[in-house]
């Protein structure tokens, strides 16, 4: 039975033309444009742009979380929230860095005693 099926397969001439083994294709030496390019653009050719210039002129894709876009100035209980930023001209990060005349005066011994005892003099 198997032999008959094999003989039938061997005697059948397919209607589709069988191309045979892949031929070795030789490519031309000339630089040809990519099939999907427009206007025959090739590397080093006219119309090519510098990638750095292209990136400079194109808007980057960024994801900006909504909370960051709309950071509120006050917190829910009304207290002021501070946003971190670099120091500007004539700013210091602590009172201790101010010139002496602008710092708090040291508290005297007598005043300290008064405060610690509840303010009764």
């Amino acid at each position: 039975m198997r032999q008959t099926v094999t003989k039938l397969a061997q005697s059948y001439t397919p209607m589709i033309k069988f191309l045979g083994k892949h031929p070795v294709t030789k490519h031309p030496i000339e630089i040809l444009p990519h099939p999907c390019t427009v206007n025959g653009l090739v590397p080093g050719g006219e119309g090519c742009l510098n990638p750095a210039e292209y990136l400079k002129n194109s808007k980057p894709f960024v994801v900006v979380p909504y909370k960051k876009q709309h950071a509120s100035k006050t917190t829910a209980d009304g207290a002021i929230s501070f946003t971190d930023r670099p120091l500007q001209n004539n700013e210091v990060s602590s009172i201790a860095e101010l010139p002496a005349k602008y710092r708090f005066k040291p508290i005297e011994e007598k005043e300290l005693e008064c405060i610690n005892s509840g303010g009764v003099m």
Partner: protein
Amino acid sequence: MLRSVSSKRSFSVASRLFANKKHEVVVIGGGPGGYIAAIKAAQQGYDTACVEKRGRLGGTCLNVGCIPSKALLNNSQLFHQMKSDAKGRGIDIDGTVNINVANLQKHKDTVVKQLTGGIEMLFKKHKIAYYKGEGSFEDTTHVKVSPVDGLEGSVKEETVLETEKVIVATGSEVTPFPGITIDEERIISSTGALSLKEIPKRFTIIGGGIIGLEMASVYSRLGSEVTIVEFQPQIGASMDGEVAKATQKFLKKQGINFKLSTKVLSGVREGEVVNIEVEAVKDGKKEKLQADALLVAVGRRPYIKGLNAEKIGLEVDKRGRLVIDDQFNSKHPNIKVVGDVTFGPMLAHKAEEEGVAAVEYFKTGHGHVNYNNIPSVMYSHPEVAWTGQTEEQLKEANIKFKVGKFPFIANSRAKTNSDTEGFVKILIDEKTERILGAHIIGPNAGEMIAEAGLAIEYGASAEDVARVCHAHPTLSEAFKEAAMAAYDQPLNF
């Protein structure tokens, strides 16, 4: 202009001092184009390295594209079928069928993790050196791999790879929409659309291309009221005109609304809603819409950030695509470019074909990609798939053709599955009857289009296909019948 026979080596003193690894081929980018090129290169005997900064291989396709979207499409379709179709098929469901969004996402994430892990196993099998970091050019034969902050497994310090051959496969990114800020919560890109934690009640999509239509299908099935806003007068990007109209018709039947020839002027989030202003292209009439989520799906663009392409004189065109010749060569013959970052359709399988061809060009001096036969598939239900020429393209090229069409309502298998929406349309040369294009709307169209691709590649005529025995009952019989309709008459319609 003639090709350079040998690669020019340019020296960088810094690279000479710091080059600490050497590979014959370095692939920059681990997406479909890159990882396939790396595997092919290793199989051809090259000492191969692949540089990827995402932290996982597979690129956009596996991580935030084809794969997760197909998982969501499949599961949302199953949910929709159980809800709307079960009773008619004799399946009584005791209780309610509900969507568990967390588990839906979990299943999708599991599939993605398994596939990306699978590629890492393939890399290990083929002994491909995998560098987690950002790849950039030091010169034409040195690629620097820089550490990426917060990336697990990233190279600890800058590593310079000395190499003979480079394949650039850096892929693409989402194209932003001017004036609309994406937050991936309410105003989202396709990446955010794949990870929504809740089903929006009202979902507006800017863009009627494949990505927009697929996401529309998912969320419509899950219960969202979906509106697609498209600037062009028809949806479907490069679809055949008749197929695009039929696609819009069945999507409309599924509850998706369309605003074609409509321009989006603004999209602004205010709290938990997004306010959108649109304008009709024809008469300039303005309209205000409101949505719970807005998807920006207006396309993708090549990604070359951080590559340092300008350092070695690589060039781009006005759309940011790296310029190459017909052998994928950049300005330097030892540097080839494949995939979304260069010319051609932005499809994963196109990138894969190019990845293989680029390596074959390196190895044998010959590679092959047939850009006239790259299939496209949209995974709606029914699916839409096509390859070769459209009617519009043939008319524009003044090529006389004949059309053979067969509806799935006349196909036995489609009937048994109660899934008969759609048709097969085959375009053949009027004189030689050679198949020039095939367009399918129907169940499993994405699988069936492979037969069309093979027929086109072999230069088959409609009769050649019709004389091949197709199993019964199968959906593929519709393809055979369409071929018969093209050159003669169908038997079952």
